[in-house]
């Protein structure tokens, strides 16, 4: 069987995606193609609809119109957990961990779609359930090791420093073994050195076979690591292309720097 050309198969194809909140057009006719194995960045000023874009992809918000095809299957209209099972994971702009659970337990929730045992198996601790539990724990611990925080496994997430919480959230998102990972402003609150480390981490995740969509304000991270960039302004896509082209695109410059009248 001939393998598809590397990096050429579209993993995600979004067509004409719109999301209206009453009269507010949060997203208007967004289309994009994310190829497998790429890092695809979505940028834009605050309120451009970047997070709404992620929310539509993960069914946190139901798109008003448009189609989202992931691995050749329409996922617009599916509930969030089915989309997760299909292989899309995300992190959140503000960290959203399960506060009353330990680090390991948080990541184990991320492993949920990798298990099958339901209530009856669990209640009676059948051998199949115990085997699965061991397997899930190993998987979760492995994810923590990859993030370099395996030593924190049994700590509670509440009192953990911000940076570590970010890593826990990333480990939790990766625990399901997604094909596509959506990162919502992962560099927010990081200093320059930490941002560089994050870039390496993102590259490592991509090298592991995960396609990444990155919503980010930190241009150094976007320009250095992404393969393609989509620019949104007030929910409308205004440019798409390789980072270098985007940097030179006049519409984008106008949106980011103002049209020149102010300066």
């Amino acid at each position, binding site marked *: 069987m001939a393998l598809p050309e590397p990096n050429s198969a579209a993993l995600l194809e979004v067509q004409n995606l719109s999301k209206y909140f009453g009269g507010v057009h949060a997203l208007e006719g967004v289309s994009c193609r994310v190829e497998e194995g790429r890092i695809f960045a979505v940028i834009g000023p605050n309120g451009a609809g970047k997070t709404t874009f992620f929310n539509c992809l*993960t*069914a*946190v918000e139901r798109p008003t119109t448009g189609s989202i095809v992931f691995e050749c299957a329409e996922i617009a209209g599916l*509930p*969030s*957990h089915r*989309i*997760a*099972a299909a292989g899309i*994971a*995300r992190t*959140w702009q503000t960290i*959203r961990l*399960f*506060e*009353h*659970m330990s680090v390991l*337990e948080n990541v*184990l*929730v*991320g*492993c*949920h*779609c990798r*298990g099958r*045992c*339901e*209530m009856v*198996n*669990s*209640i*009676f*601790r059948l051998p199949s*359930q115990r085997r*699965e*539990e061991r397997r*899930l724990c190993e998987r979760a611990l492995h994810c923590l090791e990859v993030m370099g925080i395996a030593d924190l496994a049994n700590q509670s997430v509440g009192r953990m420093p911000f940076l570590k919480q970010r890593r826990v959230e990333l480990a*939790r*998102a990766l625990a*399901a073994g997604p094909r596509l990972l959506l990162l919502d402003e992962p560099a927010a609150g990081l200093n320059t050195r930490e941002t560089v480390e994050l870039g390496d981490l993102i590259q490592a995740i991509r090298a592991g076979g995960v396609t990444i969509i990155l919503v980010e304000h930190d241009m150094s991270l976007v320009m250095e690591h992404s393969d393609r960039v989509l620019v949104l302004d007030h929910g409308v896509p205004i440019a798409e292309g390789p980072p270098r082209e985007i940097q030179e695109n006049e519409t984008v410059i106008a949106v980011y720097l103002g049209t020149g009248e102010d300066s």
Partner: protein
Amino acid sequence: MGLRNRTGLLVLALLIAVAPWLCSSWYFKLTQAGIYALICIGLSLLLGYAGQISLGHAAFYAIGAYTSAILTAKAGWSPWLAIWVGVAFSMIVALAVGLPSLRLHGHYLAMATLAFGEIVSVIAKAWGDMTGGPSGFGDIPRWSAFGFRLRAYGTDREAFYLVWGIVLIGLIVALNLIHSRVGRALRSIHDGEQVANVLGVPTDAYKVKVFVLSSVYASIAGSVYAQWSGYISPSPFDVEHSILFIIMVIAGGMRSVWGAVVGACVMGLMPDLLAELEKWRFLIYGLILLLIMMFVPQGILLGTRDLIRWLFGKLKREADGNGVAGTQ
């Protein structure tokens, strides 16, 4: 389920074993508290773990009790069978109530269960032919299992052992569930339903499942109650009791099934201590709830643990302080 929980189970088993020698005059109350504990364990899975509130759990208690009572007393069935018929019936009813109301976000389950609790209570009072109406009916055959008979009010040690044996089993079942993939999914719903859903947890389905499971606990408790007391009437199954169960769970500590057991015992024994103040019972319960929410929101169980830790810490600091002072 971890060393701490195993130790807890062992300690509880020992306490149950020696209880008859410690407080034989409290058999009746302790047996009743055991039945409450069973309901509260199920309710704590729903309320404390999955974060969903049911204001009608006494209705499932009633379904279990009346099903068992009617089938054994009027149709001559074996109590063993009647319990499971009650469970099946409760599960079907819980599905019918839970499916529509749990798919909506917000307090729909609370409202639906409140209404449902009232409906069941009215049926129990009005359907005289079947339920005996407001005065209820008696002559329910007593259940016996493994040589333990649920026999009489008052001084029955066997009933105490049997009921608390069932509580132990219920506790083991709940602890097994909590320390599993399903249990973690339930807790994740409480902490962040949307996040859990995006991680792949079918949150709506789990909310319905845990609601059904908690109805099973209440139904078994109801069957045991009927077979133990030999007489039932609608009054222990009214909405007031649904609220009492919630107070028990919150008082003991919502985020632990152990708390449910502690809450059921403390609140279950309370009426005896407050016998003089019977009329003011619900006012006092309300006050207890208020005080707990204000001062020990983690519940009596964890609150006591924190208090002990604080005291030890203080003693230790003082000892250290004296040590330092001594060397100077």
